[in-house]
Structure formats: structure tokens, C-alpha cells
């Protein structure tokens, strides 16, 4: 094996070990923020396969509802989204789309540098509610035009297969 081939093999090994794919989704490093069970299935009443200690790191490879499939050194199983933070060692290093775990990557218009662009920021809100601020009757009219009534919301939900459930706070 030539040196070049050895280097290529080494690089491929690193890449493949860094990616635990499930449906093409790259694994995301996670850290448990509390002691929590890993369950055998993404269900609340599924059997716990291990009790994971706070601070344990692992890799999340897929999501189902509120559950993340996580591989830890101890075991693999399902944990709740709220049991972990993304990244290892406490610092969240996940990208804005969490490696596609939460859904397909979408066009991102948000920018890390929004200085000078009007937005919901201190300067713009200050201006809007300050002496120089002014009501846009045109924009309010647009807002009214887009509104739907209660029946419109219900009709939309029915079409999407959403049904209301009674849940107390």
C-alpha cells in the first residue's frame, strides 16, 4: 500500500467514525445535563436500558418526536430532548440545524452579522417606540388582510390532521 493510499484510508476511517448516520443525518455530539434514563424505544413507558449520569457525552443520530437516539460509552437508547445539550463538555457546538437532526436543512437567511440591518433589536425597537417612531397604517392593513378567524384555524388544522386535546397547564 502506497503512502498516499494509507493516508486516504486513514482519512476515510476518521470521517466514517465521526459520522453515525441515520437517514443521512450526521451524528451530533451531546452532553447529558441531568441524570436520565436511556430507553429501549422512543416511548415514555419503554424499558430503561441504562441510567446515564449528568455530564456523560454521547452522539445523537436520529430523532423521533421528543426523543433522541443517543449512543453513549455505556449504552445506546432513547433520551428526551430536554435531557441533553448539544456539544460535548458543556459548550454547545451544534450548528443551527443540529446536523439535520430536527429536520432537513433549510435556507438560512439569518446572519451572525446583522449590524446596520433593521431588526427586532435594541436600536430598531427603540426607534419604533421613540419620538421618531411612527405607525404604519399600510402595514397594519396588510396584517389585517392576512388574518384568519377561528373557523379558518380549525379548517386548516383539520386538513393537516391536527386535533385538539384537553390538557391542563
Amino acid at each position, binding site marked *: 500500500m502506497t503512502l498516499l493510499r494509507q493516508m486516504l484510508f486513514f482519512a476515510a476511517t476518521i470521517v466514517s467514525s465521526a459520522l453515525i448516520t441515520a437517514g443521512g443525518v450526521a451524528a451530533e455530539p451531546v452532553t447529558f445535563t441531568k441524570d436520565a434514563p436511556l430507553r429501549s424505544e422512543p416511548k415514555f413507558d419503554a424499558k430503561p436500558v441504562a441510567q446515564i449520569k449528568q455530564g456523560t457525552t454521547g452522539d445523537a443520530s436520529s430523532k423521533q418526536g*421528543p426523543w433522541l437516539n443517543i449512543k453513549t460509552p455505556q449504552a445506546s437508547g432513547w433520551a428526551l430532548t*430536554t435531557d441533553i445539550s448539544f456539544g460535548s463538555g458543556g459548550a454547545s457546538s451544534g450548528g443551527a440545524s443540529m446536523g439535520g437532526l430536527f429536520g432537513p436543512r433549510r435556507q438560512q*437567511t439569518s446572519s451572525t452579522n446583522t449590524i446596520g440591518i433593521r431588526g427586532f433589536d435594541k436600536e430598531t*425597537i427603540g426607534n419604533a417606540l421613540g419620538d421618531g*417612531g411612527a405607525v404604519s397604517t*399600510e402595514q397594519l392593513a396588510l396584517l389585517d388582510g392576512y388574518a384568519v378567524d377561528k373557523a379558518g384555524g*380549525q379548517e386548516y388544522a383539520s386538513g393537516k390532521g391536527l386535533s385538539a386535546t384537553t*390538557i391542563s397547564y
Partner: protein
Amino acid sequence: MTRYKLLLIVALSLVCGVAQAQRGFDLGSLLNAGKDVATATTGISEKEEIQIGRELAGRILGQVALVDDANVQAYVNRVGRWIASQSERPDIPWRFGVANALNINAMAMPGGTILITRGLYDLLDNEAQLAGVLGHEIGHVIKKHHISVMQKQALVSAGANLAASRSGNNQIGKFALDKVKEMFLSGLDKDSEYEADAVGVILAARAGYNAFGLAEVLHKLNARAKGDESVAFLFATHPAPSDRLTKLGDLLTPRMSKLPSGIEPEITPVAEGTAAPTRGTAPTAGARSLTNEKPAAAPAANAAPAQKPALDAGGLLQGVKGLFGR
């Protein structure tokens, strides 16, 4: 009149006295203010709440226009209205809009107007996450978090009348507006934000969505670096996303067995090519100073939304629909 109300009147009169000195209000206004403090202690009516929220929304949209995509705006209103219908205030005139701003934030105005930035909207992967964000903002409205702050300050009615008696026009007077601005710039207290999170996830669950959509959005926010300008104002006015996640976990985990799993429909993206804001963009068209101008009419509770905008926007809307083939 209770002793508490009397104390409030005296206190506010002193405050207004300072304002009078600064702004030249007359004694008659101060007396009117005294009357209005009693009103403030007994509550701001729903009609007033809607008018206040509408003026605030109009002012913000005077700086940052709605995204020019009628399909997305209608979609967000359908989703938002469905979620709001699961709340204790299903019949106020709910309005939802995506504002053409790149930074990541959302705002609830009293009375049911909710605006989310395009930056935040584009960050969302599915409708359950949108439901979580809108549910949080709806939570602020139904819990009257902003109105409560205004009432605690006992300044809205008083301030409005002080200014109104002077200029005879807008709902929120200059004096009160300064306080409202201060409230929006400094943010609500942490407990109000945590409460809005709690209400938001339950409303999303009631509406049939995965209740953890908001938690996923908080993970996305948590992934943003602290020096990231796009989340700077959001982080300055809200508890840390990691703290919010912890609170949500504490709330939701014990209730998992009773929460329906919910669904995560696809989200409707902003149409490609829709104009994004650029640096130095001028305030939106149609923005006018409130000086000597009558306030925009507020929709009444239970009123059916206008089928077409009151101004000449009907034609504009048709044009937008045609442009994107929807």
C-alpha cells in the same frame, strides 16, 4: 376608594408632576391623571389592550415591514389562530406576521398581535417548532404579561390621558410610551418568560403538535455563540436558553405519560427570491408620525378579519400572490 388607590394617585401625581415640568402638562391634565390611576388599578379594558397592542405593532412595522410573501403570512396566521384557539382567549383579534428582519426574535403585543422575525422563522425545521414559538408568544398575551407591567406602573391610562389632553390624538401618550419602550428594551422578568414557555408547550400540545418543538428551538438558540449579533437582543431580554431548557424539562418530563405524542407537519418556507432586508433600509412605506394623526382603528374582539386590507393593499396582495404563483 381604598388607601392603596389613594397612595397610588398621590405617587403618580408626583411622578406626573415631574413629567409636567419636563413636558409642560397643565394642572387639568394632572387631575385627569389622578382619575385615571383609579382606572389603572382596576384594570385596562380589553378594548384598550387591543388598541395599545395595535399601536405598538404599527410602530414596529413602521421600522421593519412584513415579509413580502402572502402565502407564508397566511400560513402563519392559520397556524397561530389554531393554537390561540386552544387558549383562554380564543376570541380576541389575533394577528400573526413574519417581519422582514434577519436577526432572531419574536414579539407579542398586548391584545393578540404577534410578530416573528424572518431570521427566526427560517431557523425552524417544522410546524411543531413554529407552534412552540407562537405558543410562547401567545402565552405572553393570554397571561397579559406586558399589560400587568403597565398596570403595575399605573401609568398607561394616566400617561395616555396626559398626552391625549395635550394633543388630542393617540392612544398611548408620550409619557407612557417612554415606559412601554423601556419595558420592551429591558424585557419582561424571567418568571414571565418561563411561564410563557410553559403555556406555549401546553398550547402546542393541545393543538396536536409535538410539545417539545419549543425545546428544539431553544437548542438551536443555545447553539448560537454569545457574540452572535443575530441573537444579541433576544439573549439580553430573555433567560439563557439552557436555563429555559432545564425549566421545560422539569415541567414536561413528569407529565410525559399524559402528553399526546403530537405531530410535526412540514413548515411552509419563505419563497425563494423574497426580498431580504439590507443595511440602511428606510422605514417602511406608509409609516407616518403620530403627531396630529388619529389612531388606526382597532379590530373588535370576535370581529371577523378583514377580507381585504383597508388601504390600497388589496391590489398589492394580489400582485404578491401572482408573483409567487399562489
